[in-house]
């Protein structure tokens, strides 16, 4: 579905991505994890051409997103829904208007149709009563859920999540996790999640990729991931109190 071919990206003086190769299969939930500043978000941005690789190519299906322009790019982007780290809701619009924005801008639907659809999506993220509220009146978790509703309103094939649980309390984090999982099951979309929260990675991912120094050092299913012998992965797992012995869902040993 999405393929990275030797993608190199330099930001400042550092190679954030260094000949990165990666493939995401249709219908899976692909989790990219790793410590902060290791290029997780950068990878995600390459998929929708918010960043252009210095070298290499990024493919979405048959289309090369890293070289597309104009209408083609718009077409590729329309296959994506993106949930940004802070939600990225427009502050001067209400939650409902934010969710309705893509429809307002790109479809000829009537206001009534749009409102019905918006309410439906808000119901999906369990925030129907937030319709008339301003983003500034919502909590961080609620904002992310509204943003999620906006991401899915155009019924994209692929949803990208940038740190969906960062800055949220564990309970809300799990709610978001559940939501992501539900969406995948209900809508059958391909999901790419960027996170440093391994708990959530292990809970929702079909495959987990570990990014380190601009390269993918490990790609495996959650069960194998926690058993990995890779030093970087181990260090990352240990830091979050996840051991090889205990299953991640059990009480972590302190």
């Amino acid at each position: 579905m999405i393929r990275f071919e030797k993608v190199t990206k330099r930001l400042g003086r550092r190679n954030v991505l260094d000949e990165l190769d990666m493939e995401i299969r249709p219908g899976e939930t692909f989790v990219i994890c790793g410590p902060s500043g290791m290029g997780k978000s950068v990878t995600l941005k390459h998929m929708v051409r918010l960043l252009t690789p210095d070298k290499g190519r990024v493919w979405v299906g048959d289309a090369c997103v890293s070289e597309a322009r104009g209408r083609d790019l718009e077409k590729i982007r329309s296959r994506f829904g993106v949930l940004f780290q802070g939600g990225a809701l427009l502050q001067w619009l209400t939650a409902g208007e934010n969710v309705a924005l893509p429809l307002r801008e790109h479809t000829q639907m009537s206001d009534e149709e749009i409102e019905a659809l918006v309410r439906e999506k808000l119901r999906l993220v369990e925030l129907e009563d937030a319709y008339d509220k301003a983003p500034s009146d919502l909590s961080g978790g609620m904002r992310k859920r509204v943003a999620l509703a906006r991401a899915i309103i155009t019924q994209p094939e692929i949803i990208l999540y940038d740190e969906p649980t960062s800055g949220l309390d564990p309970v809300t984090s799990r709610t978001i996790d559940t939501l992501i999982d539900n969406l995948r099951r209900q809508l059958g979309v391909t999901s790419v999640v960027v996170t440093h929260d391994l708990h959530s990675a292990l809970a929702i991912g079909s495959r987990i990729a570990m990014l380190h120094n601009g390269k993918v050092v490990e790609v495996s299913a959650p069960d194998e991931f926690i058993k990995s012998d890779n030093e970087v992965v181990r260090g990352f797992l240990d830091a979050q109190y996840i051991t090889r012995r205990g299953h991640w869902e059990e009480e972590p040993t302190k």
Partner: protein
Amino acid sequence: MSLEALLFIPTAFSKRSRQEVLNQCYVTGIKSLAVISVVAAFTGMILALQTGLELRRFGLQQNIGTAVTVVMLREMGPFMTALIIAASVGSAIAAQVGTMVVSEEVSALEIMSINPVRFIVMPRLFALALMMPLLAVYTNILGILGGAVVGATQLQVSFQAYFDNARLYAENKDLYVGLVKAFVFGVVIATTACHQGFSASEGAVGVGQATRRTVIISFLVILVLGYMLTRVFYR
């Protein structure tokens, strides 16, 4: 960027943009009225007092009508309005756009294939370009009235004499060249603010810097352009 925004001007009247354009007009125009009123009135009063005191030595103080009117129309009206709007609205736009960039709202718009220039720049550019001349007219009126009040109370120049004198030398050209200036200043402020906002780097520091730069650059460009426009229209 500003040129690109111009391409979207026709969309300003479309249903989906109209509300935003109106909101921006409201923010730019109506919310700045209070501060502009004070500045405009006092600009006129200062002009009247300064020239009036000087002219009184020659017994020519009735000429403050012309002095205040011509100076307000040609230069001070648009100039003062531009400075205030650059400092208040321009910096606010830069901060807002900068925050939008930093919080990835602009990226979100791009993903939704909503052109940020059309969505963010156009309404602000349109509102500023439209409201600046209108505000300049408002500034002119208040400035001239302020001058008249000072004339009547401090310099023994009656309202009648003041306005008769004002009509003697002030021309429509003065008024409209001033409005052209105001329009250009509006475009300058909007362009600078949006440009700085869009190039804001990460974090609150970046936004602060964008705001600061917007005010400085706008001021400088307004001054220089003001001179050049005067040069073009009055040889």
